Each structure stands twice: as C-alpha cells, then as structure tokens.
C-alpha cells in the first residue's frame, strides 16, 4: 500500500511539475527573449555610430553625381518636392539655383536582368540633355561603357524628346539600353517638356490613344509592353478577349525626321488588317507640286484593309508621296511582325506556365510523401 501510494505521489509530482508555471518551463522563453533584447541593443548602438556616416556618404555620392551632370551647379541639399503622378523611375529632382537646368535622379529595373540601374541626368531649360551618368548598374552583364563612370552618356548630350537615340552596344544589353532610354524620356516628360519636332496635334495622352483604339476595334483593349519593337510602333493594344490587336504607328521622314503619318491599324485575331484610320498625313510638298489629295491618301490607307502581312507589299503606293507611303508600308510590316511575336509568346508561355505548376505540384507531393515515410520509419525505429 505504501509503495503504491508513494508511486502515486511521485507520478502526481511529475505531472504537477509539467503543468505548473515553473522556471524549467519558462527558462527557454526567458533566455531567448534576453538574447534578442541584448542583440537589439547592440544593433541600436551600431546604428547610432554608423548612421551619420552612411547618410553623409550617400549624400556625398548624390552631390558628386549632380556636379557631374551640371558642372559647377549650385543645388539645395534636399531634393525638390515631387509632383503628383511622377513616373516610377523618377526618384528625385534637384533644380539648379542659377537656372542652368534641372537634375533628375532616376532608377529603373526594366533592364535585361531586372536589377537596379541608377541614372542621373541633367536637363537644360529647353528640355535638352546636358549630361547623363550611370551611377549604379547591378545587372549581371555590364559592358564597360554601361558601368558607372562609363562613357555611355556622351551619346545623349544635346538630345531631347524623341531625339533620344536608342543605342545598341550589343544584343544582350538591348533591353538595358531601352530601359535607360525610357527612363530618360520619363525625366524629360516629368519636367513638362514637349517632344521636339512634332506638331501639337500629335500630342495625345495615353487615355485618348486607348479610346481611339477601342473605338476602332469596337471592344475593350489592353496596352501591351513592347520589347525590341520598331520605333514606328508607338503602342500596341490587344483586345481583352484576345481576338484582335490595334497598332498605333507614327512614321517620320528619312531626312530631317519630321513626322509624316499618324495611323491606327486594327487587326483581327489572325493578324489580318480589318481597319485603318489615318489621323495625320504630312508630306514635304503641296498638291500643286504633285502631292496626293486627301481622297488619294484615303484610298491608299483603305487599300490595306482585309490584307494579311504577306499582301502588304502588293498594295499600291500613292502617287506623289512614294517615300511617305513606303515608310508607312515598312512600319505596317514591322507592326505585323510584332503582333506575330506576341502571338508566338502567348501560346508556349501558357503551356510553360502549366507545366511549371504541374512540376512544382509533383515535386511537392513527392517531398511530402518522403517526409511522411521517413518520419514513420524514424518513429518505428525509436519504438524499438
């Protein structure tokens, strides 16, 4: 009886110790909390020491880049207040106090590998680029010219608006160069400068362009991101139901770069042209000098309706403006190629996505089963 009672008392004591709020149970929590608190205090101290130095050096780097783009310029220590609706690439703006221009600090991650590219550009009061420097390039493929301190910015000096060149120092970095160009365009448009050499009637905000595209195709559309597209293809829209495209084309004269045509072209889902709407047409000579009249121009554009890509070449050029007509034909062909590329991207991508998900699901299932089997085996081994 005594042994049973003692055994019962011992068992009770063990059970009580397990259930009670005693030091043995709370020690792990207390120790971990104390260690976390101690590490937090150490980190706070380290931050106290290093933060002023880091802030000063970052400010120094920015000041250096400001001087690189507007040499001898006088700037405030803090950037200007940002306007609402600023493009995401525009990070800071510094206005030079003596009217030499404005410096825009840009950051883009639309390059080849999606890593950050930092750019500082100085823009004068006429919207022309004074100088441009790359301050950071975290891409994995970086030619010497595109590294911080490289000479890539030299080609942009004096350019502005649609005059900004799209350089190509190598096939693998074309995306990076497009990203840099688009960031510079963002900077110039943020400062409110118009695109040079183009008449005011050609300025249409994105919302208006979208509306025209939707009216032309008769359904809702969504703008696509253009990669490696011809420069005449300004925007490409796809119908939200996937059955149609609209291309917004602008062509320019070969000499002088003056704008010649502004046209919307609607395509069906197979890439066949359904409708062409020309909004702007300008050639360098008058009707008296042999330029086509408005009916001839309209007939020229209507001639492309119901044509496929292979039939574009067969459409007659308009007499008296063969150069302009040829430029439009080339732009239309390039647009067809871009649409074909988009269609080619869509089909395999969807499949690749599905296959990817299936693989992930299969691997996860196999891992789960393996873990369950291992844990069962270990448990069984432990019981022995």
């Amino acid at each position, binding site marked *: 009886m005594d042994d049973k009672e003692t055994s019962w008392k011992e068992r009770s004591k063990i059970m009580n110790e397990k259930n009670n709020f005693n030091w043995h149970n709370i020690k792990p929590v207390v120790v971990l909390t104390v260690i*976390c608190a101690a590490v937090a205090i150490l980190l706070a101290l380290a931050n106290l020491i290093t933060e002023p130095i880091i802030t000063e050096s970052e400010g120094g780097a920015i000041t250096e880049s400001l001087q690189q783009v507007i040499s001898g310029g006088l700037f405030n220590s803090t950037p200007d207040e940002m306007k609402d609706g600023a493009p995401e690439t525009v990070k800071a703006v510094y206005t030079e106090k003596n009217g030499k221009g404005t410096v825009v600090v840009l950051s883009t991650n639309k390059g080849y590998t999606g890593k950050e590219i930092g750019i500082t550009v100085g823009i004068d009061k006429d919207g022309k680029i004074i100088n441009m420097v790359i301050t950071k390039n975290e891409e994995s493929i970086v030619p010497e010219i595109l590294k911080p301190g490289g000479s890539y910015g030299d080609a942009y000096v004096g350019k502005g608006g649609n005059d900004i060149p799209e350089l190509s120092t190598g096939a693998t970095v074309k995306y990076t160069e497009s990203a840099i160009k688009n960031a510079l365009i963002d900077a110039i448009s943020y400062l409110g400068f118009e695109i040079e050499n183009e008449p005011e009637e050609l300025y249409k905000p994105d919302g208006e362009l979208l509306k025209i595209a939707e009216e032309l195709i008769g359904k809702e559309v969504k703008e696509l991101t253009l990669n490696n597209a011809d420069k005449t293809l300004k925007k490409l829209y796809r119908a939200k139901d996937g059955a149609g495209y609209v291309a917004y084309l602008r062509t320019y004269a070969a000499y002088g770069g003056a704008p010649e045509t502004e046209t919307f072209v609607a395509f069906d889902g197979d890439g066949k042209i359904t409708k062409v709407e020309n909004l702007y047409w300008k050639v360098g000579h008058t009707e008296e000098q042999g330029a086509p009249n408005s009916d001839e121009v309209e007939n020229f554009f209507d001639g492309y309706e119901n044509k496929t890509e292979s039939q574009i070449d067969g459409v007659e050029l308009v007499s008296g403006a063969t150069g302009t007509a040829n430029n439009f034909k080339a732009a239309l062909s390039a647009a067809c190629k871009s649409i074909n590329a988009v269609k080619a991207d869509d089909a395999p991508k969807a499949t690749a996505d599905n296959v990817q998900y299936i693989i992930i699901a299969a691997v996860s299932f196999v891992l789960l089963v393996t873990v369950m089997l291992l844990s069962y085996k270990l448990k069984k081994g432990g019981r022995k």
Partner: protein
Amino acid sequence: MKNNKLSIFLKGLIAENPVLVLVLGTCPTLAISTTVIGAIGMGIAATVVLVCSNIVISLLRNAIPSSVRIPCYIVVIAGFVSIVQMMLQAYLPSIYELMGVYLALIVVNCIILGRAEMFASKNKPIDSALDGLGMGIGFLIALLAMATIREVLGLGSFAGMEIPFLSSYKIPILAQAPGGFLIFGIMIAVVNKIDPKKGKEKRKDFSCEGCPSASLCGKTSCSEMQEVNAVSSNTSGEEATEQ
C-alpha cells in the same frame, strides 16, 4: 595545452578546411569568388562573424537550453552579421556594394551555424575563438584561391588590375556559374589527392571511429549507443537461433 590550441586553429586552415574538405558555405563561395577583392571582403566578414559568434555562444553555452539553442544561435549570428553590414556600409561602401546580398546571407552560411553547434556550444571561449579564426581564415584561403583562378583566367585581371598579356586569352565561362563549379570541383579533387585520408572509399562504420564528432562528444553517447546496439543484436541472434 599550447599544442592543443594551435591544432584547433590550424585544423580549420587545411585539414578541415570548411570549403574544400567539409564542403560548407558553397553558395557564397561560388557567388563571390569571381573577383579577388570580393573574396577577401567576404572572407574577412565571415571570419569576424565566426569569431564573435563563437565567443558569445561559448560564453552562453551553459545558459542556453537545448530546446532553443538553434534560434539563439541564429539571433546571435544575425546580430553580428547586421553589425558587420553596417560597418562595411559606413567605412567600406565599395566592398559593401560589391558583396551585395551575399553579405546578409552569411547568417545562413553553414560554416557559422555548423561551428556554433559542433564546437562553440561545447568548448571554452578561447578555444571557440581559435576555432572560429581558423575556420574563417581557411574559408578566406579557399575563397582567395578560387577567386585568383577565376579572375585571372576568366577576366584577365587580378584584384581589378588588368593583366596585359592575359586580356586577349580570357576564358569568360570561368567568371560565370558553370566555371565556378568546374574550378570548385577541380580544387576539391586536388585536395583529395594531396590529403591521403580524403577521397578514399569510406568503410561504413557506425562506431566512434566512423563518426566525425567523436573527438568532440567524448564518445560517451556513442559508447552508450554501442551497448544498446550490442544488446539488440544479441537478442535478435537468439531469436533467430530459436526459430
């Protein structure tokens, strides 16, 4: 005593080199060893974190309960890594930029957590510090060797300084991931060749002789396990005989 301390320090350099022998910390090794400057920066940062975390963990080894030892080790290691990050960003910003995300990844470097668990938690602070220093310098040596090969042959430069006669004969793949793996494999093969104990087919041995932790645990737990195994094998033998 002194020999013991010296041996603790020296084993991390070559005999138990964390990268080439223990094959730990492969990810930062391959990522950072494209340039000599980056390799030196990573090696020094990892060494500092190793030494500091080993000392602290060793000092706290009797206070940290077993159930929360891993979270405590990680908090300590992460704290030191963050401090090193801040110091580099303040005083050596170019190195900080060069190391990028791999500086923060020192927290999950197998070398640091492994040595904390295998050595620092079972030994005195001075021994732990020496072990950390040896392992860190061994990591640095391995990184430096790899970086030298990859930068010289892959980029035609050394520590950023172009080597004129090599710039026309670069092997670019060596500066990229496949080349990194290639060089890594060749270096491990060379180490296996040099060290007579390595590279030979190991006899599967579940006794203390086959256990890499035998010298650390004092063989007490293994000897207990051996007794249990001996009893169970005798029991199964008797059952088989009866059948």
